[in-house]
C-alpha cells in the first residue's frame, strides 16, 4: 500500500456511491431492537421498488440518539426516522420518492445534534464499520501515512504534546507526556495497549466507538507504536462486547490485508501487530496494572505503582496504555493539525469529550461536546431535561469512582479541573442524570455494592472496607443507624480512600463522599436516636 493506492481506494469507493444512502444503525443498542431486520427489509424494499442503482442501504455504527432506536437516516434529505420496525421499510422507500408518509421522525437540527462537535465520533453513523474502504473514503489511514512516511517519531510526539490531548480514561494525564516517557524508557521491546475494558455502570462510549469506527482505534495505535518504538499492540476488550470484538477482528484482518498493519506498513520498515485480548468480566481489569497482569495471563490484580507502566509494564517492558477514546483522537489530530485541535476546548482541557447520557433524561444516547461545555447545556438543552416535566436533582459522572453533582452546580463547565473541584471526576464518560425521585443514599449504596463486588480482594482496605461501608449504608437505609454509624462511615471513607492499593479502592468512597457533601440532609433524615448516647446533664441552677 502506498499513498497512491490509498487515494485510489478512496476514489474508487466514492465513485461507487449511489445518489441516495439510507444509513441504518447497526450498533449493539439498535440491533437489540431488531435493526438487522430493518436493514434486511430495506434492502428488499429497495429491490422491489427497482431502485438498486439509486439507493444504497448501508449498515453504519451508532447514530447517537440511542433511546429512539432503531434509527434510519436518509442522505441527502437528512430525514431521521426513529423507532423503525421492519414493516416500515416500504414506507421509508416511498418517502424517498417524495411521498408523504406517517413515520416517526426526529429533528436532525435539534440541539442534541447541533451542539455536538464530532471528532472521535466523526465517522460514527456515517461509515460502514465492517468495510475498510468506507473508512479510507473518509480519509482514514491518511494520518498514519503522514506519520510513518513524512514524520520522525519525535515529530509525532511533539504533535501530541502540542495538541494538549489528555487521557480520556478519566484521570486526564497528558497524552504527549505519557508517550514521551515510554519513548524515552530504555528497552528492546515495548508495547502499546488499548484499554477497552469499559465497565462503569451506564457507560457505553468506548463500545460505540469500537462498534462504529474500529479502524480509527487501529490507526491511533499504530501511530502510537511508531512514536514510542513499539511493534506489538494489544486491545483489551471486555467479553461483554461481542459485536465490538467481531468488528475489531474484521478490521484487523482487513488492515493487515492492505498492508496497513503487520509487517512493512506503507512499504516502510515499520512493523506493528495488534492482537485482541478478551477480559473475563472483572471491573478491576480496567485498572492498568491489573489489565497488564490479565494480558500476561495472570490473575487480574493491581500492583503498587511506581514503577509505572511507562517504565516497567507488560512483561516488564515499557508499555504505553491509553483508553479507546484517546486513541480515537490521534488520527484526527495529525490529519487536521495540532492548532485546530488545541483551539477546541478550554485552556487546560483541549478537544472534546464523549459522554454516554443515561438515566432520567429525555434523550439518552451518545454525545460529543467541546470541553468546557456547561453541564446545563448537556442535560437541559441536548438531553431535553428530565422526562415527564420532572426536575433534575443531580448528575453523576465518573461511575463508581465519580461523584454526584447537584443541580445548583449545573453551570459548571465540563473539564477535568472543574469536576474534580466538585468532588467528582471526568471519568471515562458515563453521565447518569437523576431526578427528584432519586434517593441519594440509594445511589451511594448502589455504587458501594458495585465496588464491593468488584474489589479484587488483594488489599485489606478495599476488600474489607467496602463491605463495612456497604453494611453501614444498608443499615442507614433500613433506618437502623445512628449518628455514630454515620461518623464511622465517614471515617471509613477517609481510611479506604487514603490506604487502598489501586484506583478502584481509592475512589470507591467518592459516591458516598460527594453525596454527603451536597445531600447530607438525606443521610441525617434516616438517622435514629443513639440508644447509648450519654444523656445531657441538666444545667445546675
Amino acid at each position, binding site marked *: 500500500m502506498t499513498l497512491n493506492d490509498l487515494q485510489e481506494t478512496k476514489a474508487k469507493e466514492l465513485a461507487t456511491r449511489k445518489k441516495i444512502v439510507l444509513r441504518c444503525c447497526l450498533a449493539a443498542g439498535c440491533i437489540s431492537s431488531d435493526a438487522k431486520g430493518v436493514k434486511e427489509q430495506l434492502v428488499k424494499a429497495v429491490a422491489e421498488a427497482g431502485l438498486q442503482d439509486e439507493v444504497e442501504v448501508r449498515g453504519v455504527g451508532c447514530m447517537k440518539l440511542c433511546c429512539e432506536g432503531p434509527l434510519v437516516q436518509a442522505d441527502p434529505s437528512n430525514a431521521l426516522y426513529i423507532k423503525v420496525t421492519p414493516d416500515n421499510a416500504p414506507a421509508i422507500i416511498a418517502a424517498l420518492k417524495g411521498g408523504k408518509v406517517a413515520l416517526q421522525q426526529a429533528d436532525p437540527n435539534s440541539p442534541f445534534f447541533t451542539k455536538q462537535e464530532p471528532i472521535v465520533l466523526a465517522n460514527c453513523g456515517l461509515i460502514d464499520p465492517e468495510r475498510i474502504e468506507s473508512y479510507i473514503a473518509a480519509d482514514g489511514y491518511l494520518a498514519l501515512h503522514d506519520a510513518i512516511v513524512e514524520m520522525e517519531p519525535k515529530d509525532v510526539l511533539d504533535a501530541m504534546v502540542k495538541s494538549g490531548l489528555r487521557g480520556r480514561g478519566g484521570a486526564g494525564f497528558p497524552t504527549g507526556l505519557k508517550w514521551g516517557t515510554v519513548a524515552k524508557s530504555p528497552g528492546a521491546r515495548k508495547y502499546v495497549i488499548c484499554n477497552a475494558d469499559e465497565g462503569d455502570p451506564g457507560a457505553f462510549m468506548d463500545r460505540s466507538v469500537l462498534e462504529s469506527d474500529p479502524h480509527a482505534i487501529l490507526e491511533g495505535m499504530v501511530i502510537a507504536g511508531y512514536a514510542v518504538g513499539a511493534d506489538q499492540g494489544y486491545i483489551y476488550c471486555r467479553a461483554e462486547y461481542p459485536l465490538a470484538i467481531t468488528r475489531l477482528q474484521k478490521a484487523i484482518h482487513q488492515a493487515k490485508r492492505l498492508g496497513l498493519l503487520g509487517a512493512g506498513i506503507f512499504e516502510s520498515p515499520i512493523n506493528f501487530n495488534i492482537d485482541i485480548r478478551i477480559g473475563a468480566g472483572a471491573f478491576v481489569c480496567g485498572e492498568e496494572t491489573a489489565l497488564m497482569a490479565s494480558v500476561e495471563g495472570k490473575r487480574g490484580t493491581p500492583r503498587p505503582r511506581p514503577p509505572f507502566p511507562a517504565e516497567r509494564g507488560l512483561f516488564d517492558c515499557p508499555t504505553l496504555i491509553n483508553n479507546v477514546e484517546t486513541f480515537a483522537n490521534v488520527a484526527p489530530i495529525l490529519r487536521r493539525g495540532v492548532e485546530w485541535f488545541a483551539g477546541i476546548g478550554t485552556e487546560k482541557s483541549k478537544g472534546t469529550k464523549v459522554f454516554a447520557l443515561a438515566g432520567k433524561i429525555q434523550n439518552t444516547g451518545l454525545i460529543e461536546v467541546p470541553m468546557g461545555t456547561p453541564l446545563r447545556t448537556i442535560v437541559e438543552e441536548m438531553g431535553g431535561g428530565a422526562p415527564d416535566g420532572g426536575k433534575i436533582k443531580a448528575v453523576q459522572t465518573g461511575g463508581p469512582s465519580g461523584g454526584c453533582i447537584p443541580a445548583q452546580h449545573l453551570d459548571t463547565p465540563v473539564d477535568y479541573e472543574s469536576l474534580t473541584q466538585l468532588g467528582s471526576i471526568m471519568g471515562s464518560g458515563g453521565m447518569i442524570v437523576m431526578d427528584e425521585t432519586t434517593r441519594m443514599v440509594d445511589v451511594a449504596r448502589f455504587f458501594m455494592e458495585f465496588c464491593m463486588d468488584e474489589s479484587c480482594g*488483594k488489599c485489606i*482496605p478495599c476488600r*474489607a472496607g467496602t*463491605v463495612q461501608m456497604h453494611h453501614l449504608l444498608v443499615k442507614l437505609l433500613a433506618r437502623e443507624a445512628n449518628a455514630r454509624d454515620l461518623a464511622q462511615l465517614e471515617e471509613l471513607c477517609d481510611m479506604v480512600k487514603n*490506604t487502598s*492499593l489501586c484506583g478502584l479502592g481509592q475512589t470507591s468512597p467518592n459516591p458516598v463522599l460527594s453525596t454527603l457533601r451536597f445531600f447530607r440532609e438525606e443521610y441525617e433524615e434516616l438517622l435514629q436516636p443513639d440508644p447509648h448516647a450519654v444523656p445531657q446533664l441538666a444545667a445546675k441552677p
Partner: protein
Amino acid sequence: MAAKTLTIDGTQISAENHTSILQAAKEAGVKIPTLCHLEGVYDVGACRLCLVEVKGSNKLMPACTTRIYEGMEVTTDNERLQKYRRMTLELLFAERNHVCAVCVANGHCELQALAYELGMDHVRYDYCYPKWGVDASHRFMGMDHNRCILCQRCVRVCWHIEGAGTKNVSGRGSKSHIISDLNEPWGNSTTCTSCGKCLLACPTGALFHKGDTAGESLRDRSKLEFIVNAREKQQWTV
C-alpha cells in the same frame, strides 16, 4: 553499590541503593508493622499496614515496595498512620472468624501480636461471621479459611521458593480465598509436595500442622529466608 542517605522519623540513616523503605528502616532499627511482607519472597504491598508518609508525596506509600532515594524524608509513625493501621486490623478481625481463644496460633500469631502492639483493643465494626470451611483433606496439614487474612504469603512461597504452584487465590473481593490446584481439596492435589513451607509462612492459624497444640505450633520463618539465601546468594548461614 552506591549508598543513599535518607531521613526516617527525623534520624538520618544511610542504606544501599535499591533497598525498600522497609529494609532501610529495619537496618536502622525502626520497626514498621507488616503482615504480607515475608523475608525471602518478593513483596506485593497488599496489607497496607506498612504505609508511611513520604515528604513531597500526598499519597501514603507502602514501605515494602517503595524504593529509597537520596534525601527522602519518611515518617513511619504518627497519629494518622496509627489510626489507619488500627482500622486495618479492625477490618481484618471483623472480616472472618478470628477467635484467639480457640486458635492453634494463639500466642504466636502475627495478627494477634500486631493488635496488641498497635493498641487495637476492640473492634467497632459489625462482625461478618462468614461461613468458611476447613480443608483437612491433606495427610498432615490443614487449612482453616476462617482464620485466613489473604496475605498470600503461602501462595508466594509455594510458587517462588518451592516452585510447586499448588496454592492460589480464587474468587473476588470478600469472596477471595486460597485454593489448592484448581480449587480441589488439598489432599487431592497432584502438585503439592507436602513441603510445609506454606505453614512456615502463614502469619495466623489458617495453615496448621494437624495434631499440633498451640504450644507446639511455633513457626521458624527464618528457614524460608535461609533457603532463599542459600540458593540465590550461596550463603549457608542465616
